[in-house]
């Protein structure tokens, strides 16, 4: 179980300020402010399509905001030199939503890939490092398999082994437990916690799995309509999840509680029903709202 722990420092290693991003006419991020502290696990939640992956893509410098700034380790992506960008990239690892393994390489070769970029590392050292990383995710005996020979969960774990190949200081996880069986999913949770607590890694985890979120999070943040709707400690979100109707102070509280509990009835559902379905079908709504 994650606890408030001494490894978290007040220093922010990821800083998003006023980040806005549109795709065409669709504004996906609308002034997102989010600071992640060194050594913490920040869980990012929100409905499907609300912009979580887009947010992660800004954090890794794969997308540039229309306005606002994104800083990693105190450096703004917008003003980084190529050299600084390359150096920054070495300091974080990503577990993509899809796993993103190279299909023509074995699992071991996939993990070795980022290590081979370090010319100073001898082949024998790389082989040992690959074994250590694969052991970490329980795939050591599958090193010689091709990605196509692995199950979805094993691909995820192989992706994680590759993400940690260079001992990153920040790890980004996009849906690490989606599609995994409960045991594997719990193992991934424990691995995220161990990496953070033991190796002082900072983690940003996008997840829909509430059990997992409440197991690993130090802080949680909920995205909605392109903004950070709520950010707080795990305890604050637990209290909200467990609150009785009378204890909720706002419509927003109700909405967050519905999301955390995963209930079908509540403001999220109401909003879906009223969001221009009739317009979309080129119909005139016959009932006034």
């Amino acid at each position, binding site marked *: 179980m994650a606890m408030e722990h001494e490894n978290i420092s007040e220093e922010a290693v990821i800083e998003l300020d006023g980040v806005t991003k549109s795709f065409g006419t669709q504004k996906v991020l609308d002034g997102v402010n989010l600071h992640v502290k060194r050594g913490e696990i920040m869980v990012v939640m929100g409905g499907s399509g609300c912009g979580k992956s887009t947010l992660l893509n800004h954090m890794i410098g794969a997308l540039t905001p229309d306005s606002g700034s994104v800083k990693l380790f105190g450096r703004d992506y917008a003003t980084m030199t190529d050299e600084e960008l390359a150096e920054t990239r070495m300091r974080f690892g990503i577990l993509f939503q899809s796993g993103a393994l190279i299909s023509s390489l074995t699992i071991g070769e996939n993990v070795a890939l980022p290590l081979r970029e370090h010319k100073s*590392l*001898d082949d024998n050292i*790389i082989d040992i*490092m690959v074994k*250590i990383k694969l*052991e970490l995710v329980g795939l050591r005996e599958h090193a010689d398999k091709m990605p196509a020979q692995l199950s979805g969960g094993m691909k995820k774990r192989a992706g994680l082994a590759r993400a940690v190949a260079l*001992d990153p200081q920040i790890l980004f996880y996009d849906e690490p437990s989606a599609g995994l069986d409960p045991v594997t999913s719990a193992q991934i949770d424990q691995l995220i916690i161990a990496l953070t607590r*033991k190796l002082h890694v900072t983690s940003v985890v996008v997840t829909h799995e509430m059990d997992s979120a409440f197991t690993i999070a130090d802080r949680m943040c909920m995205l909605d309509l392109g903004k950070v709707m709520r950010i707080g400690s795990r305890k604050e979100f637990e209290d909200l999840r467990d609150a009785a109707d009378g204890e909720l102070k706002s419509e927003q509280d109700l909405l967050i509680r519905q999301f955390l509990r995963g209930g079908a009835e509540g403001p999220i559902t109401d909003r879906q029903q009223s969001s221009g379905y009739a317009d979309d079908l080129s119909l005139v709504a016959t009932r006034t709202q």
Partner: protein
Amino acid sequence: MSEADKTGVVKNIRNEQNAVVLELRGDIDMSRSSELREQILDVLQQKPAALVINMTDVAFMDSSGLATLVEAMQLSQRHGSSLRLTGLATRVRSVFEISRLDTIFEIYESESEALS
């Protein structure tokens, strides 16, 4: 980079009875693990009965450093030497633990224990 890293990774090499003691210093990361590797290979050429690696002045080690020590163990076993580690800071010990290598290495609380 800390003050200690500005100089070599080996702080001192001592010959004790039946053992060579290698004292390390500074962070052992990608930029310094190959230097450590060369030094270890050098010492193991002498086929000492035991190689004691004292890491008291090492605050941080990454997995390239860890892999270098694994290779050192492979080689020492081949040479019939015994490899012993001592002076592991909590943070360094964590690197062994998370990789489940703390049970594979011989790790001692003090150098005198490692030598006895």
